[in-house]
């Protein structure tokens, strides 16, 4: 196996290569941007229609009160966990192969959260009253219900979003200084000058930077775990059969990391292709990433089975019925598709020949995410269709075009944010790649080159 990165790559070259990605976009960029905006338009149109007419147009009903919005909300929250994984966990582990790819993963975290947040709003029956959820002092002495997992969500997501944005930003300051130093005019210059806060790479800055980055990374890990556990609590804290499962929090966290990693693979391939980042986003890194994904997929599979097993061996007939319903009822095709995409398909990743086969990986990673999206939907829809109360069981719940439209548009929204980010900010961390190169070359100097794989 080759090296993660060439040690002899010139630092100036790194700057040049990465800064090149900020240059004026090609025509295709504008086309895709336009498509993304059009997708957002669909969502906005659907939302306006839903807002004016009432939630009924989403084709949910009284026994089936949640739908795609919540499923997609969890999906996006899940996606956001990859950035934390790569930047925080691997940072603490000193896995320096994360360095070329963590920046866009972190951006993905932030933008997924920003997308997820919208779904909470879209989901509300009275969007215009959303501020009631926030704990602001008011003369009525009325507060939100701090017992509600939805309020925990609000707290957790607010914390996560602000922490991730800060983390992304702080980690980017040295790169912003590079941009400032290399771009000499226009709004970009002003932007980078302001945003780089006068960073000059002094020893004092670096010293504090190092400890700050590490500290926030330490905070982010429990935070990320808590965020998705709390999202899992939305379900696990309720008494719905199929939701009230002890293993839900770790299951959700695993699912989140899983979908996040899959999404990183997808974006990795896209960025590598678009920005010609072959030097940085190398196949050996991809290989590590794929192996990580595979491991997480197996963790997820395991937790999934644990969930089924604990239901199956438990005495709760209601939950058991619910599980059987999932596997055999009208949702069975989706359920089995989820099992296939989530547990069977990743087995491919165990084979070396696929680990660096980018076209196949591209498709597989997207399918994995389809599977993970189905997982979320399989938590929502069948549980509502087959709850505690047989009289209100329901099969007739196919989301309306309004719901699909908004879900569809959310991908456009994410794409838009991500594409703008890629053109405004360096999507590869230049200073960290330099560090990586530096440390690798130091290692080479001091030790004899090791043959074979790392």
């Amino acid at each position: 196996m080759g090296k993660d990165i060439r040690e002899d790559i010139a630092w100036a070259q790194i700057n040049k290569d990465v800064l090149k990605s900020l240059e004026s976009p090609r025509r295709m960029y504008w086309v895709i941007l336009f498509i993304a905006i059009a997708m957002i338009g669909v969502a906005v149109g659907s939302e306006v229609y839903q807002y004016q007419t009432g939630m009924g147009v989403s084709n949910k009903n009284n026994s089936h009160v949640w739908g795609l919005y919540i499923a997609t909300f969890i999906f996006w929250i899940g996606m956001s966990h990859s950035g934390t994984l790569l930047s925080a966990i691997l940072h603490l582990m000193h896995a320096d192969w994360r360095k070329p790819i963590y920046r866009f993963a972190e951006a993905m975290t932030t933008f997924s959260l920003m997308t997820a947040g919208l779904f909470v709003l879209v989901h509300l029956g009275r969007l215009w009253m959303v501020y009631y959820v926030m704990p602001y002092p008011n003369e009525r002495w009325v507060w939100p219900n701090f017992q509600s997992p939805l309020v925990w969500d609000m707290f957790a997501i607010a914390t996560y979003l602000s922490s991730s944005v800060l983390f992304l930003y702080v980690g980017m300051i040295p790169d912003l200084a590079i941009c400032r130093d290399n771009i000499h005019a226009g709004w970009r210059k002003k932007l980078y000058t302001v945003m780089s806060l006068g960073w000059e790479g002094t020893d004092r800055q670096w010293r504090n930077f190092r400890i700050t980055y590490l500290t926030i990374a330490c905070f982010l890990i429990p935070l990320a775990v808590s965020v998705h556990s709390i999202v899992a609590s939305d379900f696990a804290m309720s008494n719905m059969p199929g939701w009230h499962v002890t293993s839900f929090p770790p299951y959700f966290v695993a699912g989140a990391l899983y979908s996040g990693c899959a999404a990183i693979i997808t974006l990795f391939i896209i960025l590598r292709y678009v920005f010609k980042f072959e030097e940085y986003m190398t196949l050996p890194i991809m290989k590590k990433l794929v192996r990580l994904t595979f491991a997480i997929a197996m963790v997820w599979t395991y937790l999934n089975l644990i969930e089924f097993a604990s239901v199956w061996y438990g005495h709760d007939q209601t939950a058991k019925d619910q599980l059987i319903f999932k596997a055999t009822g009208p949702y069975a095709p989706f359920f089995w598709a989820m099992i296939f995409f989530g547990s069977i398909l990743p087995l491919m990743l165990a084979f070396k020949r696929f680990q660096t086969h980018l076209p196949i990986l591209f498709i597989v990673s997207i399918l994995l995410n389809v599977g993970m999206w189905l997982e979320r939907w399989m938590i929502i829809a069948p549980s509502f269709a087959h709850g505690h109360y047989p009289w209100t069981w329901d099969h007739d719940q196919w989301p309306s075009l309004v719901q699909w439209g908004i879900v569809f548009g959310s991908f456009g929204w994410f794409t838009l944010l991500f594409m703008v980010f890629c053109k405004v900010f360096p999507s590869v961390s230049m200073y960290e790649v330099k560090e990586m190169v530096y440390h690798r070359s130091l290692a080479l100097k001091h030790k004899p080159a090791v043959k074979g794989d790392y």
Partner: protein
Amino acid sequence: MSITNLLENWSDFRQQHPSDERPHREYKWAMSIDLDSCTGCNACSVACYAENNLPVVGKEKFAHGHSHHWIRIERYWDNDGREFADQGAQFLPMLCQHCESAPCETVCPVGATNHTADGLNSQVYNRCVGSRYCNANCPYKARYFNWYDYPTTDNVWPEPMNQQLNPDVTVRGKGVMEKCTFCVQRLTVAKSNARSAGRSVLDGEVQTACQQVCPTGAISFGNLVDPLAKVGKQWMTQQVELNKDKQAKDAEEKAVKLRGYRILEELRTYPSVMYLEQLRESAI
């Protein structure tokens, strides 16, 4: 919002409910429904439409599960493969059970649904943001969401049908959750009258709309705290206790059984509605 308040009353704030230490003092509204008397005639449901300004949603919306019957009559068959339903059906009026430990209350993000001192599960329409979590967490699925803005929907209350609307009950707009209130507008009036007279509400002084209309008198409603109330006596005779999830009577093996039970009691929601089992003659 003082910390002294928090510290001074800490032990008070930490008490669970319902518990023997924190019983209802004046009122605990409860219901009992005799399934042997219920004939499934639906009069209660229509009365509820009349009393509580429930919208008639029409066929298409009903088909989508957007109906609003705060009290609905469920009809169950013996599904044991017999040729005819020769023991008839089992009818069950299902309404909000006003659980003492209501699963809906804890999950509402804005605290729109709370427990009142009278043991009612209150729903404040104006506070509701429509997250629908309460419905998701309601094991009885007795909550109904305003999927559309019925006051402005065609043929829901066309002029002059809107003149029938009860001014004592809010007309709900789109996006809020609603449910049976035990006709709280009647309870409030009765309590106010009783207070002016310097006494508590007497048994039978206040009736819910469904109880009032029921031709067979299958529904009893009253104050569990009141020792003279019929409903309290019924609960007592049936040995159903509010804050028990396993009734003592069920453990005993006796020749004579008691009929009282509460639905899905094992979920520890402590419903305020007791049902009395339906009976069937064995000699025929």
